[in-house]
């Protein structure tokens, strides 16, 4: 059982507040929720909508077909009625006029006015919607406590009145989800960073990465950490590198445009061998692009961004659950290999709430790999050539008599500037060796869905996880033999499962939110294997399982 609601209107109508409330109610009532936001880059007006999908089993992506539309204006009906199921309904205020048989006009505004404030009409609607689905319970304490007392009371009244406006059509009973949480991708990254011991986060606001910083800033006092808004992204990343060098766990983040400004310092982290995690919450480019929408188009850029060559690890997150654990892991990887780790997410994940099991803390271990200098009786070599490529790292000011020098020039083991051929080669090789160790000890293979005997292999990465997973299920139920690999780790490219399933499948199709098929190109570059087809989307809206299914059915 799954239902899909759309709440649409213009910016400033209080849509987010009521959606947050509905999501909490659904979660408390024992329904899995997946919600996402589609909004324009403006504070007032325009057309925005939120999708709330809920059901009695885990949900990993949005859907296009709708069961209920709450239309706060007539545009919403106009834009979305074609997506409504035949037995679906549209709820709108009496004032919204539209010639549509599935429309149920309700006195939302009037009821809200009776409750004390016409703005509260969204809560009237929430009451009506829950009644429609027969979802009952004590929900009033879930109305945001951040609202002023008077507004809360009006919303509570409005919510009650809403329940009187509709009859029950369903009688849905949820499960026990008291051990579950509901969280979005950016909060999960922020939480992962916090739990992972980040004590310094510097950034410059840029949608859709800003909320990572906002989350950390909100918690900074309680957690006792520094969150600094830098004058620009160049400063943000150079600050993070400075803090990391000094011994703090540091992180920065932005969207593509801001990350583009950070690029030179990627190499600084690389050659100074300073641990650093950079979050890129992608949006469609180039330049300003579509600021509030989604894309996966920074992958090719980040694989080699910055002049020269140095070891880097590029990871992507597949949903909020993954985002938490991968952020935690990225911090450990950065410290272990003393280098840059880029973590890719996007607007879709940033603004998607998902019900997932509560994070499991027992196995989380912070690994700093910082040396205490034991046995050091000569001048410290920051860049000592070792077999693994990792040089023991001291924190400046912490060891009596020892100093820590780092340098962006090519350098000797003591970090002094050099142009000696042998030293250059040994330092370059030492740095690059670290990736061999990463591949040996830490790389994670993609997640595979499907059977062992397949005709079609889909490959994707990051946020398309949910849609691909669902598409594979639908396609296999329809009689096709389809498997899929969803990549989290991207570079170095884990290729064991890839080679295995590419050998079995007759057709390999990459599914990506970009124009050029960036993962497909990387796979070809790293393995020599070619894609036989591509499903690519670059309109700024997230691909759904239905779109994948339709495209695959066209191909076969």
């Amino acid at each position, binding site marked *: 059982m799954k239902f899909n609601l759309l709440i649409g209107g213009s910016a400033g109508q209080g849509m987010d507040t009521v959606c947050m409330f509905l999501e909490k109610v659904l979660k408390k009532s024992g329904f899995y929720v997946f919600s996402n936001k589609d909004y324009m880059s403006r504070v007032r007006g325009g057309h925005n909508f939120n999708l709330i999908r809920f059901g009695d089993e885990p949900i990993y992506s949005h859907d296009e077909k709708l069961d209920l539309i709450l239309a706060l204006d007539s545009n919403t009906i106009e834009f979305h009625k074609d997506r409504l199921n035949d037995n679906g309904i549209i709820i709108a205020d009496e004032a919204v006029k539209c010639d549509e048989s599935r429309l149920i006009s309700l006195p939302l505004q009037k009821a809200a006015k009776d409750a004390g404030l016409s703005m509260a009409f969204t809560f009237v609607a929430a009451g009506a919607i829950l009644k429609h689905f027969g979802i009952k319970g004590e929900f009033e304490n879930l109305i945001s406590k951040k609202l002023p007392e008077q507004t809360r009371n009006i919303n509570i009244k409005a919510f009650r009145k809403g329940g009187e406006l509709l009859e029950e059509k369903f009688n849905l009973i949820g499960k026990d989800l008291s051990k579950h949480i509901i969280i979005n991708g950016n909060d999960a990254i922020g939480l992962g960073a916090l739990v992972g011991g980040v004590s310094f986060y510097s950034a410059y606001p840029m949608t859709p990465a800003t909320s990572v910083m906002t989350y950390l800033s909100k918690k900074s006092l309680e957690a006792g950490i520094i969150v600094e808004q830098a004058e620009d992204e160049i*400063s943000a990343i150079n600050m993070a590198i400075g803090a990391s060098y000094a011994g703090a766990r540091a992180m920065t983040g932005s969207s593509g445009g801001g990350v583009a400004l950070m690029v030179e310092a990627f190499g600084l982290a690389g050659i100074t061998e300073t641990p650093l995690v950079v979050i890129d919450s992608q949006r469609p480019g180039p330049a300003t692009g579509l600021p509030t929408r989604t894309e996966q188009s920074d992958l090719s850029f980040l694989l080699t961004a910055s002049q020269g060559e140095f070891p880097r690890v590029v990871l992507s997150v597949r949903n909020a659950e993954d985002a938490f654990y991968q952020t935690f892991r990225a911090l450990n990887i950065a410290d272990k290999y003393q280098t840059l780790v880029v973590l890719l997410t996007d607007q879709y994940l940033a603004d998607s709430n998902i019900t997932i099991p509560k994070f499991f803390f027992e196995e989380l271990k912070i690994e700093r790999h910082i040396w205490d200098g034991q046995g050091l009786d000569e001048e410290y070599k920051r860049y000592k050539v070792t077999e693994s490529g990792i040089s023991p790292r001291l924190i400046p000011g912490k060891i009596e008599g020892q100093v820590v020098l780092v340098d962006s020039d090519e350098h000797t083991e003591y970090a002094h500037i050099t142009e000696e051929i042998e030293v250059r080669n040994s330092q370059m090789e030492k740095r690059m060796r670290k990736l061999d160790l990463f591949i040996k000890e830490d790389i994670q293979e993609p997640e595979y869905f499907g059977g062992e005997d397949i005709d079609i292999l889909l490959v994707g990465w990051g946020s398309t996880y949910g849609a691909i997973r669902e598409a594979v299920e639908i396609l296999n139920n329809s009689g096709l033999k389809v498997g899929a690999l969803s990549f989290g780790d991207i570079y170095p490219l884990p290729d064991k499962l890839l080679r295995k399933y590419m050998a079995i499948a007759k057709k390999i199709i990459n599914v990506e939110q970009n124009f050029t098929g960036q993962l497909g190109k990387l796979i070809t570059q790293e393995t020599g294997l070619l894609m036989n087809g591509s499903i690519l989307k670059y309109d700024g809206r997230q691909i759904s399982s239905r779109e994948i299914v339709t495209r695959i059915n066209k191909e076969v």
Partner: protein
Amino acid sequence: MIELKSFNSKDEITWCPGCGNFSILDSIKEAVAELNIKPEKLMMVSGIGQAAKTPHYIRANGFNGLHGRALPPAQAIKMVNPELNVIVTSGDGDAYGEGGNHFIHNIRRNLDIIQLVHNNQIYGLTKGQGSPTTSRGQKTSMQFEGVISEPLNPLALAIAAGATFVARSFSGNKEHLKSIIKAAINHKGYALIDIMQPCVSFNKINTFKWYKDRIYNLDENYNPNDKGAAIIKAMEFGDDGIPIGILYKEEGKPTFNDIHPVLRSGKVMVDRKWSPIDGEKFVEEFM
């Protein structure tokens, strides 16, 4: 006093013979030794340029970063470890050109750090192009018909932006420079020392003699606490004389760490103890 030789680096110095950087290096070493700052508690931060090689030539902690980007890591280092004495050392191109934006915002933050600008009014490392402080009309290896833009006045800019310690010195007067560096280290808050420094290879106008003929010590009665007068004094630069000394000083202004809600207790962030389980409480709001 800590022995001067404990600051001696084994690295070979690559500056031109006669370069003003040598005496700046000596002044820094003598100042920190006289103030009993141990090498492991001294943090030298630089960008790129001839002056930015300084961290290699003094045995101390060193962060030789990117061109123009010395201040961001320097500030962050001071935020997370206030026990380190942070000295930024870079040239005029690094500090005022490529790093101009950071220069302004670093003043706004007011970390307790020192910035030494080896200001030779020319680009040395890249061989003689105009810098933000090159005089208008001066012919360079790039501006063949002379520099068109007005030179920046970094001291007036710093005072106007709210810096609490703004001084000028001269590499040819080591004792003066050393005393200013010591005063800057003892000052609480961001301190800018713009050091006039002849570039023997690429600036044939602003030579040792050119500076020597124009500089004068600020009068004993000069009041460095008067912001308006300090800005006017900072504008004095040229044939009518160049004042050296502390042009502006403001005591008692809280630093970034003094105000920061987490750092004001004196917290040393790099000593923070943290386990994942300490963060479990933050999951509650998502239940």
